[in-house]
């Protein structure tokens, strides 16, 4: 088990998590990243900034979110006790709001009045548009055309919030392409525009900054579970696309004797090649400004990711997860589309909670994990978002059994 002494304060000054992370971007962006890093380090140590952030989380985002003891889900798995950290109850329906409030507050602090973001499932886009509306900022959201189609309700929400949604038709029209286009746009608009990255991915300081804004999930979980069980949990489980909800949950527990499991999307199955299991089946490379695991071919060309969940459909993963995997500090597993759909239905029926398809991957693994552990063990699953946005996809998939896997 890794302890504080071996993990240490990461990233290092240059944004590296061991061999991962860094700043692999065009020169045009380097001055902006250096400015952002300096501003963030100052804001992080500034009590007024932190007080504003905490106030937004409490008064606007609705934190703390509950830690719910899922009794019927636990009974159905027949083993360890399952708790759900209810990020689906945060404003806008997902953990994404924690980070966007932090980054938009920082943009305001830096005097930038325009923000851009990329989005896959639309949750980060909605959360960015929401924070931008709150601060009266101009907002553009880049979204792949395939995701615009898959996640229509979130597109409507972003437009209602006053954001411009820019459809991206290049590549496969998914999250990776939206991120490419957002980076391109940022290269041209870097002088007055703040790029709100939605995961613990991208160039330094984003992986560090997003983790810091999301650690509220783990901080609350720690207090809540100590209060409820009088001890730390045995296992933490969260889904991993880019990995921000998982990093937010894991980070405050890194020095504790707590197991951590990140659940990636296995799509149609890893053997099919149609999946998004970057840590499980990828190799080390550089994409979107940082070094981490990627889905790529032997020539270093990025491969398409596949998942029924638009939010997990990304061929990269945050660099800190790459380090946690390498150190063995966290374990990364994967769940197929069909298994996620089963968990989606199960949680809806057993607990009256309709989870995001992303979160359903974590729930699916938790059911397996709970079944093989004794009843005196405690599992916390991060329910990263709610499933309203996924109803059309789920309905279509459940009507057509052959698309389940």
């Amino acid at each position, binding site marked *: 088990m890794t302890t504080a002494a071996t993990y240490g304060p990461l990233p290092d000054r*240059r944004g590296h998590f061991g061999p991962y992370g*860094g*700043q*692999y*971007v*065009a*020169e*045009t*962006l*380097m*001055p*902006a990243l250096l400015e952002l890093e300096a501003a963030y380090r100052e804001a992080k140590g500034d009590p007024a900034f932190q007080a504003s952030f905490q106030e937004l989380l409490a008064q606007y985002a609705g934190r703390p979110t509950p830690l719910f003891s899922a009794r019927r889900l636990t009974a159905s798995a027949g083993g360890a006790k399952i708790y759900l950290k209810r990020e689906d109850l945060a404003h806008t329906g997902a953990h994404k709001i924690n980070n966007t409030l932090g980054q938009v507050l920082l943009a305001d602090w830096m005097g930038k009045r325009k923000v851009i973001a990329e989005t896959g499932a639309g949750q980060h886009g909605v959360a960015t548009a929401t924070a931008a509306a709150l601060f009266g900022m101009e907002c553009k959201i880049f979204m792949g055309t395939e995701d615009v189609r898959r996640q229509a309700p979130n597109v409507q929400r972003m437009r209602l919030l006053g954001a411009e949604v820019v459809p991206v038709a*290049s*590549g496969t029209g998914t999250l*990776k392409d939206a991120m*490419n286009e957002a*980076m*391109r746009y940022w*290269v*041209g*608009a*870097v*002088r007055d525009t703040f790029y709100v990255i939605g995961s613990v991915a991208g160039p330094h300081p984003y992986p560090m900054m997003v983790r810091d804004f999301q650690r509220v999930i783990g901080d609350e979980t720690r207090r809540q579970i100590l209060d409820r069980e009088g001890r730390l949990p045995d296992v933490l489980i969260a889904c991993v696309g880019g990995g921000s909800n998982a990093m937010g949950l894991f980070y405050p527990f890194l020095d504790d004797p707590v197991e951590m499991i990140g659940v990636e999307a296995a799509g149609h199955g890893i053997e099919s090649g149609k999946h998004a299991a970057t840590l499980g089946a990828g190799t*080390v*490379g*550089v*994409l*979107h*400004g940082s070094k981490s695991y*990627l889905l*790529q071919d*032997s*020539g*270093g*060309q*990025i491969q398409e990711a596949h998942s029924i969940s638009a939010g997990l459909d990304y061929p990269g993963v945050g660099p800190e997860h790459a380090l946690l995997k390498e150190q063995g500090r966290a374990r990364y597993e994967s769940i197929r589309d069909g298994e996620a759909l089963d968990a989606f239905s199960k949680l809806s029926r057993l607990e009256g909670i309709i989870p995001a398809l992303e979160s359903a991957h974590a729930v699916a693994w938790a059911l397996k994990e709970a079944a093989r552990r004794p009843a005196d063990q405690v599992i916390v699953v991060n329910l990263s978002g709610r499933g309203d946005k996924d109803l059309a996809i789920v309905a279509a998939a459940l009507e057509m059994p052959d698309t389940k896997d």
Partner: protein
Amino acid sequence: MSRIQETFGQLMARHEKALVAFVTAGDPDPARSLEVIEALCDAGVDILELGVPFSDPTADGPVIQRSSGRALAAGMTLARVLEMTEKIRRFSQVPIVLFSYYNPILAYGLDRFYREAVASGADGVLVVDLPPEESDEMTSRWEGNALDVIRLVAPTTPMERMKRIAAEASGFLYLVSMTGVTGSGGLDLDEVSEVAGCLRSVSPLPICVGFGISTPEQTARVAGMADGVVVGSAFERVIEDNLDDPNLAGRVGTFAGALKEATRLVG
């Protein structure tokens, strides 16, 4: 003396500025790409930037992105770019700069890339997403310095950073003429002139200006402010507009000739 240094020496003696031509290696397919490159050399291009196609070229605009897509679809890889470099060496001594994103080089192997690039006859490398902060990991694996590392300077780069970049660069400095991706509009020549002046004050290296330059007129004006002009998307646009033309290479060559002429008028 490196082939790049030698070229700038000769150009200065002739009172000419360099025309640096970028094309994506393998676009639209390896055979026709080689014909295009031969036509560029015949047209008098002074330095060739050979683009290694990449699936996710975030610093490039749509024209170069599509050219990468065509080359990848035609089976282009970094290994084949190096083979192509060898073939170019059979008909031309033009300095060749391999222009790449970092991931294909990383996947190829950093020391293997250096060995084979040098052996193929390449003179330099420009890795667009490898700023000085990260580039030691590449160059420290190299067993010599037979490859010039071309560095980018942007209009957003502050003076202190310019000095640092210039100190580590060799071959020439590549000044990005605008805050934007390749092929975008809005070239601001006053800004280019100002940034080029700053850069000139901190480095004796030749300065080549690129991004957004597409006509002989622009080439002539930018050549008046720098030692060379880089044109890329404009060549790729000619390729894209003439994919089915049997005289594709001839068309690219004619365009390159007009641009080269524009760099002769300035001296």
